[in-house]
């Protein structure tokens, strides 16, 4: 998986930009930490969030995991296929395991994100 075009938050979410739309999911590290995902509460299309808000909950066998949005904006799409196949978050976190898409309202927030190399370094320190 070529992660060069991905950005990461310190809460282990990833961001892939398509113009002003950010596709968001959780990193491989996050899915490993969570364990087997069994349910996901997706955010609602049309809802707006500020950076850091809890916008989704992922239920794994061992715990409930809050997902925080790394960027502010309005939810324009959600991956409804995860309702039937939540395990895609574990199997394919960077692609078919994407969770939601937001229309970014503050592009300055992008500078707070880490690139793939910086995220790797960050993980080493945990």
């Amino acid at each position: 998986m070529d992660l060069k075009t991905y950005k990461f938050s310190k809460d282990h979410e990833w961001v892939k930009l398509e113009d002003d739309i950010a596709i968001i999911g959780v990193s491989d590290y996050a899915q490993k930490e969570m364990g087997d995902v069994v349910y996901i509460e997706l955010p609602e299309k049309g809802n707006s969030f500020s950076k850091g808000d809890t916008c989704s909950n992922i239920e794994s066998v061992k715990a409930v995991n809050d997902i925080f949005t790394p960027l502010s904006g309005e939810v324009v799409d959600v991956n409804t296929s995860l309702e039937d196949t939540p395990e895609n978050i574990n199997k394919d976190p960077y692609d078919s395991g994407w969770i939601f898409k937001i229309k970014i309202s503050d592009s300055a927030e992008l500078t707070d994100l880490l690139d793939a190399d910086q995220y790797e370094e960050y993980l080493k320190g945990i």
Partner: protein
Amino acid sequence: MKKTTINSAHYHLGGKMIDFFGWDLPVQYSGLSEEHNSVRTTGGIFDVSHMGEIFIKGDSALDAVQYITSNNISKLKPGKILYTALPNENGCFVDDMLVYMITDKEYLLVVNAANLEKDFKWISSKVERFGVSIKNRSDEYTQIAIQGPNAEKLLTQFTSDKITDLKYYYFLVGKVSNIDAIISRTGYTGEDGFEIYFQSDEKTASDLFIDLAEKGKDLGIIPAGLGARDTLRLESKMSLYGNDIDDSHTILEADLGWILKLKKGDFIGRDSLLKQKEEGISRKLVGFELTEKGVPRHGYKVFVDGKHYSEVTSGTFAPFLRKPIGLVYLPLGHSDIGSKFHVEIREKQVEAMVVETPFYKRSS
């Protein structure tokens, strides 16, 4: 943190370590669901050395153990084991434990790690009048559990003792890997399996655990941690002290009437339990499933007829059964199979239904 003799093996095998009531133990190795399902289909090995071992010895050992337990100890013979409550005067639980009859003058009590000190103090004060010796020898013992359909196939490679003939809830004193050991056919998973108790140094114990893991590979037996231990026992509806049983719920309310033998003679809590048996219980521990999406977890509020009644005592998404299950105390009138109630999950009322337990039962 305290370390078991197997500690270095956990690091060697890639265990994810946590502080479990003061013990440095693995919550998982390869993953909770993988380990859980491995135990159900092939097998798993667990370090359970944190459990407590208390020995009661003396001419009046039987009388002493009868007095502090709810089950009928006189049904035991050497080599046999039973499960019992360690009741308080109200018929509630100081702990739950296994009693191994070694001889008619010596019994081994295996208790929960979290309650060891409390249990030892309690038992010591209650058996004083019987003039027996009571020794906490937990620090001496390493305990390994091998659980799953292939458990026997693995253990036979490490012992020449006749474990094939060993029946469920029986034990023998023999050798594992040439080390003197108590081998019992017991476990906390709902599968066939063994628990091995032995005294050894760290190197021997760790090497044995690694050796079991190595030889286990061909049989699909993998190291398993505390996370899987908890989901396995819950699927099999085995109670956990602190969650499902405690000092404020009685043996009858906990749906454990089968370990209560009121006719055996006097024991701590007998009067309270006799009274409750005559009057009837007003609440009962039951198993449930959610009928809507969600995962019930310990502490989540439970609503009966729209009112907050109790909390989920244990809950999870069962890895093998692939559904959300849990245990809860409900009012007696609401505890029949099929009864519906609600679990509050993040401010949402999620419907649940009382089901038959155990949720899972092995086929053999």
